[in-house]
């Protein structure tokens, strides 16, 4: 009956009884504990989407493992390509451990590209969790190639990619195709990766990618039927930040390997540096959880301990394995490191991408 208190409190305040009757206000120095509290988890995306489902997989386990077993409520604040929810968190969240934010690559990219809608600053926040994911690029079976090593046979062919927009997460695949030297035309206006895949199944689109979970459940049948041929995964990061094969797809080459298969040498240069930076922000550190800056240390510790317990819970591991792929869910220092990598994109890489977007897709940010 959380709103009962709120409602009565609000009416009472108006009737002149003032804030004295406000029952919900915490007394100043409570022991760091969330018992009896409701934690609001802001997800800057609509209900039913990937980030929403991710949060809803986590929420019940947070409820179980956070000190005091608080009620964890997922609050969808969609809009502005996730900038509205993140701005709201930046401006209004109180540093008391009762409001957290879940971001995704779609929140990171506008921030990195200095989008004018961004009024949030990642450096102000305290990272407490990072959820990596991966992606697999695949091509239509009609071209008759069997894997990435035969990509040189289709370099002259115009391939079509269904995209949500050049500044969305699609930046990573579009840039990858470009670096690879493939001739890919992007058709925009897709609402979500699912629509792009349906267009692929219709034959309108001839090259596509899906994130790991969607690839496993929805593209594998197409591969078995010969309609789709997997090319490469984006890869994953090892402890030292090197690109290695994606643990979910150990048999597929990662992007740099595939590049080497085609061109005989490892990729390098500003385009490659930019790609890797945006790959980290978009996939290796795709989903992250933050507390507002200024949250007291003991409260941060409540969260860290709680999340440690969540990712160690065998029941959670099983649920996460199915939905989030075989990626380690990262907490504490490791999470801080990965967030650091995601937002510390060198200025040269940012500028290179902005120029590339302007020249290739006529996008001015």
């Amino acid at each position: 009956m959380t709103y009962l208190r709120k409602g009565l409190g609000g009416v009472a305040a108006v009737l002149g009884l003032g804030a004295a009757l406000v029952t919900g206000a915490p007394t100043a120095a409570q022991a760091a504990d969330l018992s009896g509290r409701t934690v609001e988890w802001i997800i800057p995306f609509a209900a039913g989407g990937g980030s929403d489902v991710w949060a809803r997989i986590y929420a019940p386990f947070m409820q179980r493992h956070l000190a005091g077993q608080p009620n964890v409520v997922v609050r969808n604040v969609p809009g502005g390509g996730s900038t509205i929810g993140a701005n709201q968190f930046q401006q209004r969240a109180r540093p008391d451990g009762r409001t957290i934010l879940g971001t995704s690559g779609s929140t990171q990219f506008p921030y990195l590209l200095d989008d004018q809608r961004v009024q949030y600053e990642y450096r102000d926040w305290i990272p407490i969790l990072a959820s990596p994911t991966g992606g697999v690029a695949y091509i239509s079976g009609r071209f008759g190639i069997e894997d990435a090593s035969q990509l040189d046979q289709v370099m002259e062919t115009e391939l079509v990619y269904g995209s949500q927009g050049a500044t969305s997460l699609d930046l990573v695949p579009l840039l990858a195709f470009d670096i690879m030297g493939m001739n890919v035309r992007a058709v925009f206006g897709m609402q979500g990766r699912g629509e792009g895949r349906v267009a692929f199944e219709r034959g309108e689109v001839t090259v596509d990618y899906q994130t790991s979970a969607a690839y496993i459940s929805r593209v594998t049948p197409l591969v078995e039927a010969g309609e789709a041929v997997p090319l490469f995964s984006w890869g994953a990061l090892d402890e030292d930040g090197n690109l290695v094969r994606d643990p979910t797809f150990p048999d597929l080459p990662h992007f740099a390997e595939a590049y080497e298969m085609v061109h005989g040498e490892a990729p390098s240069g500003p385009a490659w540096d930019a790609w890797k930076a945006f790959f980290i922000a978009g996939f290796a550190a795709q989903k992250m959880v933050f507390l507002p800056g200024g949250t007291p240390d003991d409260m941060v510790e409540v969260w860290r301990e709680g999340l440690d317990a969540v990712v160690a819970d065998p029941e959670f591991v099983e649920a996460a394995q199915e939905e989030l792929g075989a990626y380690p869910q990262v907490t504490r220092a490791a999470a801080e490191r990965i967030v650091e990598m995601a937002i510390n994109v060198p200025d040269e890489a940012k500028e290179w991408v902005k120029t590339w977007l302007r020249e290739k897709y006529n996008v001015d940010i």
Partner: protein
Amino acid sequence: MLDAMLLGLGHVLSGEHFLFLCLGVLLGLVIGILPGLGGIAGMSLLLPFLYGMDPISALAMLIGLIAVIPTSDTFTSVLMGIPGSSGSQATVLDGFPLSKKGEAARALTAAFAASLVGGLVGALILTAFILVARPLVLSFGSAELFMLTVLGLSMVGVLAGRSLVKGLAACGLGLAFGTLGGAPATGEFRMTFDLIYLTDGLPLVVVGLALFALPEIVDLMRSGRSISETARLGAGRLQGLIDVIRHRWLVLRCSIMGCLIGALPGLGGTVVDWIMYGHVVQTARDKTQFGKGDIRGVIAPESANNAKEGGGLVPTLLFGVPGSGSMAVFLGGMVLLGIEPGVRMLQYQLDLTYAIIWSLALANVVGAGACILLSRPVAKLTTIPYGYLAPFMLMVILFASYQATRHWGDILALFLLGFVALYLKRFGWPRPAFLIGFVLAPASETYLYQAVQFYGWDWIWRPGVLVIGALTLGSIYLGIRFAPKEVEKTAAAAAENPWPQRIFALLILGFFLVCLWDNLDRSFLGRVFPVTVAGAGALFSLLAVVLLFRAGSGHAIYTDLDRESAVGDRPPERSAEHYLLWFAALVAGTWLIGLLPAVFLFFLAFLRLKAGASWALTLLLAVAAVGFLVFMGGLLTIVYPEGLLEDWIGLDLRP
């Protein structure tokens, strides 16, 4: 396959499954009655229970909840003219006039019975269709989807009402509003005036509430009567059932079409009600009563509406792409339960697929049955003097619009667009035409652009395109051929003082010019659609302006309902603007002190000053209203807008 069917049937008919399904239906009923709350609120309610439940039972609960929402939101559409969701907007057109005539119980019963049949027919078709749907659905590419939006737009002729010129201009207005926000091809922000809120365009729920609900509420407040003009409930439930039986072929046609169009990923849901509404008007011999309370105008969209949800399962189960808003939530719920929809599900879990399809049908029967039982008592609301009902209605639409994106922009957009809609209504610019333009603008722009990108201009010669094109031409022909001939005489009174409508028409023209000006310096792909739309809109509104200045006083272009009702029996005491100010006060109060206290004060003021209620009753109703919000808020963990006051004094009311 037969095995799978039997197994699926076994799932559905097991007692436990049925019990959870009914539980879901019950929750859905409570939530669905409130406009603006749909599957999302229901999901947050169910979620704590879903975890660890047996997937089949959990699925039953989820389906029960989702199936009944498009049924139960018919209550507010018919009784109060408040479209609860995009699926019930076409129902408002004739459902609400029926309520005004005192035939609310009849309209509701007919709507629910039609829904029920629609749901069942949908499930029946799906049982066979789901097995062969993939190639068929895949044959609908971007070009065919674009043509479907054109077919939808061709219904404007039917929805235009008295003046075709105004109808086309209103549709252009809707299309222009629909282009607000990021351009599908280039991502450029159009007409956003640097407001982040506008970058995603306006939410459909807010536009629907502003267009239909607010002007009706204001009008009812002015009249001071109950919704039912006779203050009685006339023809009742039996009549409603008879209506559905009498129009059984219509129900069948609309159900089949609803199911099939609903099955198309990416478009389905949004157009089907309007296409069916247009269809019934075109094929009816006597069209004079449409828009004034023709029962067929309720039956057609409602039978399509529930069948559509069944159709929406095709993209959801087959491709893992949600066919509608509630299906997005359903998809999320399935993923949480560890069920991965996709082609594999049909191969390896056909029994589960059938269990889902038939659960949806069963939930429809239970839900529609419960709604029919409720229809008579709930219809009594229409006999309550509106002074008592009005503050509740204003509270509900404020609350409902805020649930769209939970941004203050939702409330402001509701107010401003509602203000415009008041005059659209008064001066006879058809709001349904506006809405259909708004609904179809993003889809038609996106699919046209994609079709050209994928196929070049050869897309025109694709067989599917030719077939839908022929249907569109046929629909336009029917619309012209059987258009009502006589120009209504009421128009004569309207020309008394034509200046208000002239000014309004000039403002509309001005809006189109602003839209043109805003878009001219964009890239070709970013501007071609809005410029075309605004250009056409400017032409039609210019034509309307010219007519309004030049035409003789009996011309159909003149409409001023305000003048006409003044000619009627009893002139309203206060202007529409007066009551809009009351609403503005509620909005401003919410902004200052938050929704809950503002609602409380608003109830006190309105009931005392406007409804003349006693202090006891006033307090009782005000406490009831706040109590209701508090209860629902707690149950569904809904956020209400907070006021500046809470920020200023650092009030922390969170649990």
